């Protein structure tokens, strides 16, 4: 199959162009070991030719590991005989930024006999702002055709396809004007060519400056930032909720229809609890991932995300993070899974690892039922200061704050301890012009992320769910959790929990909560013989209060749940997005830290009492 490569620098409109040329018939793959997407798909109007979309890069001289992999893959692709043509996208409104990279691409292609067409995107922006660009002059000077296009409005696409069709048939001779030209000379030539042929005038920069003066203003910009982040947070929590409920209802409904048809009780229980329960538990996150990716895509495409990163950079840098870590961390307050996907925006590999480290400590919504139960057990439902401050609300605030504080302290400590091993990219960020977002590429990205979650993490989550179900079901057929293999395991590890004042029942609940933290409440309910404890906690609260659980144990449990990485979905996604080594180290590291801090908390609180 004939292939055409699409390459360009970030913010050149390459993704919109890819979408325009291929429609939505695409597949996305990652480079091995890293999270750089390479999308490919047939041309919508030339189905026998595949277009391969490379990640945006500023140069063929990489400065990070990920850039190196992307560049190496591009260079290897040029040796592929099926690759017949290369399309290099530049932003026609800011030629200086893209032209050096374009000359590098032309040089590489000429050395390997591959023809290049330069696509000067943003023709619509030039027209609206009455700017001119001598693309014919530039084409003569660089020895490659330059087509003026607009990915957004579809201008020049017919001419591009017609030229491409022609060239795929005739395979034109490739000149060797730039072959073996060193980078230093290319850089100088690019500068001169941009000055000579690029659009004149600074109307675009001036309009960008007006908006930046507002969005980056210390006072007003801060308020705008707060409002936008509030909307983002709402999107994860509130807008996704009805769809999440819908997914859960559909999956459970399917289970309820299918299970009665199964005559064998063990298989019926397995299908109901492990398959439908397990599938429902992870499919419910798909709407959140979709909505968050969509909202972040809109922020990114509009140009605001870069400004948000700038605003947050300074305070986060103190803790070994970057401004780009903020949105993944904020998303983590709703759910760690979409947050880990959002961390792809962090381009420095080291700082992305630091962001991964911080995300599971953000107080996610799955912790809320656990916190609510333990707070209800130990903190009286009373108020102070004329009813303005509720003690339970204050306790919830403190434990939420503790999680965020712990995230910053841990990343701060790790980044200082590993100062010799890390390689941080310096904070040099292009502030792209403000634009109305292109919805189709953003939708494509949201669909791809959701698919990735279902196909990659789903397998791991399902496997662990089945394993925990088997442990809890056998050998007594699920009649008594206490005498199941999971219960036996709880008794076996009881000596581990005794120093925190917890017996085997809490051990079993903690073990089962590795599926998802909120399972802790349901499991305790089952052990204490209370049905539907997740929906009505009061009987369980009274049972626990009656069981004589010490205050120190309750606070220790809160601390334990604030730190421990008890979520198989999060571990699975960390393993896919980062590495298995990172995920397993974080799982063990946070478990040990959580246990030791819980032990310390119990000891101190009991001593004070």
């Amino acid at each position, binding site marked *: 199959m004939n292939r055409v490569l699409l390459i360009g620098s970030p913010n050149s409109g390459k993704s919109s162009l890819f979408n325009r040329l291929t429609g939505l018939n695409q597949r996305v793959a990652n480079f091995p070991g890293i999270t750089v997407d390479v999308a490919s798909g047939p041309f919508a109007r030339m189905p026998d030719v595949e277009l391969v979309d490379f990640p945006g890069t*500023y*140069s063929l*001289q990489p*400065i990070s590991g990920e850039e190196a992999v992307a560049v190496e893959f591009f260079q290897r692709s040029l040796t592929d005989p099926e690759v017949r043509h290369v399309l290099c996208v530049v932003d026609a*409104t*800011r*030629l*200086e*930024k893209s032209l*050096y*990279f374009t000359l590098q691409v032309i040089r590489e292609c000429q050395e390997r006999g591959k023809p290049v067409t330069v696509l000067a995107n943003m023709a619509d922006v030039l027209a609206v702002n009455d700017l001119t660009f001598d693309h014919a002059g530039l084409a003569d000077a660089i020895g490659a055709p330059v087509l003026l296009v607009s990915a957004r409005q579809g201008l020049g696409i017919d001419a591009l396809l017609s030229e491409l069709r022609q060239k795929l048939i005739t395979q034109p001779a490739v000149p060797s004007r730039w072959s073996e030209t060193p*980078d230093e000379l290319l*850089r*100088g030539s690019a*500068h001169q060519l*941009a000055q000579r042929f*690029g*659009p004149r005038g*600074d109307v*675009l*920069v001036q309009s*960008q*400056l007006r908006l*930046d*003066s507002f969005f*980056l*203003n*210390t006072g007003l*910009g801060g308020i705008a930032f707060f409002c936008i982040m509030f909307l983002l947070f709402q999107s994860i929590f509130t807008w996704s909720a009805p769809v999440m409920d819908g997914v859960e209802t559909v999956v459970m409904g399917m289970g309820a229809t299918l299970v009665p048809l199964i005559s064998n009780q063990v298989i019926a229980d397995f299908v109901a609890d492990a398959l439908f329960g397990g599938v429902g538990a992870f499919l419910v996150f798909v709407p959140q991932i979709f909505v968050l990716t969509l909202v972040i895509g809109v922020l990114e495409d509009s140009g605001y995300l*870069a400004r948000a990163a*700038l*605003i947050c*950079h*300074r*305070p986060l*840098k103190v803790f070994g993070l970057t*401004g780009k870590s903020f949105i993944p961390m904020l998303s983590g307050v709703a759910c760690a899974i979409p947050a880990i996907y959002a961390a792809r925006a962090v381009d420095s590999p080291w700082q992305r690892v630091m962001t991964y480290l911080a995300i599971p400590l953000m107080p996610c919504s799955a912790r809320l039922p656990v916190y609510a139960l333990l707070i209800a057990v130990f903190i009286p439902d009373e108020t102070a200061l004329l009813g303005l401050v509720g003690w339970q609300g204050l306790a919830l605030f403190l434990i939420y704050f503790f999680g965020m504080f712990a995230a910053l302290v841990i990343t701060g400590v790790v980044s200082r301890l590993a100062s010799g091993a890390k390689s941080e990219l*310096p*904070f*040099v*960020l*292009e*502030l792209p012009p403000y634009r109305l977002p292109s919805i189709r590429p953003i939708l494509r990205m949201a669909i791809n992320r959701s698919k990735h979650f279902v196909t990659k993490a789903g397998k791991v989550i399902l496997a662990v769910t089945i394993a925990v179900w088997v442990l809890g079901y056998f050998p007594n057929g699920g009649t008594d959790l206490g005498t199941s293999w999971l219960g036996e395991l709880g008794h076996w590890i009881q000596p581990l929990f005794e120093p925190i004042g917890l017996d085997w029942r809490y051990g079993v609940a903690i073990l089962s909560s590795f599926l998802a933290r909120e399972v802790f409440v349901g499991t305790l309910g089952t052990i204490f013989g209370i049905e539907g404890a997740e929906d009505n906690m009061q009987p369980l609260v009274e049972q626990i209060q009656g069981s004589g659980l010490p205050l120190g144990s309750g606070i220790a449990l809160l601390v334990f749940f604030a730190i421990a990485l008890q979520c198989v979905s999060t571990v699975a996604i960390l393993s896919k997005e980062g590495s298995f080594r990172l995920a397993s180290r974080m799982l063990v590291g946070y478990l040990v830290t959580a246990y030791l801090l819980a032990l310390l908390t119990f000891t101190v609180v009991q001593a004070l009492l």
Partner: protein
Amino acid sequence: MHPAQTPRSLWALSKGETCAVLGFDEALPEPYRIRLMEFGFHQGEVVTCLLRPGFGAPRVYRVSNTVFSLDVEVARFVLVEQSAVGSV
């Protein structure tokens, strides 16, 4: 012809001030120097400090028709001198 001036760091520019890039401090690792040059920070290129957000946040600079934000750990290694072009 302007008399020779003492190089200043890009970070020291005030809002609206325009200067010409002189070069880079040796302390800036080579890959980053190259990346800045790829962005347009060539010797002699005019650079303008557009914004200095508060609380030590990275500052906003214009080079050619592109706007970049640079943190202190990079901007302090970019050496500039007063430009004849003036300020915005």
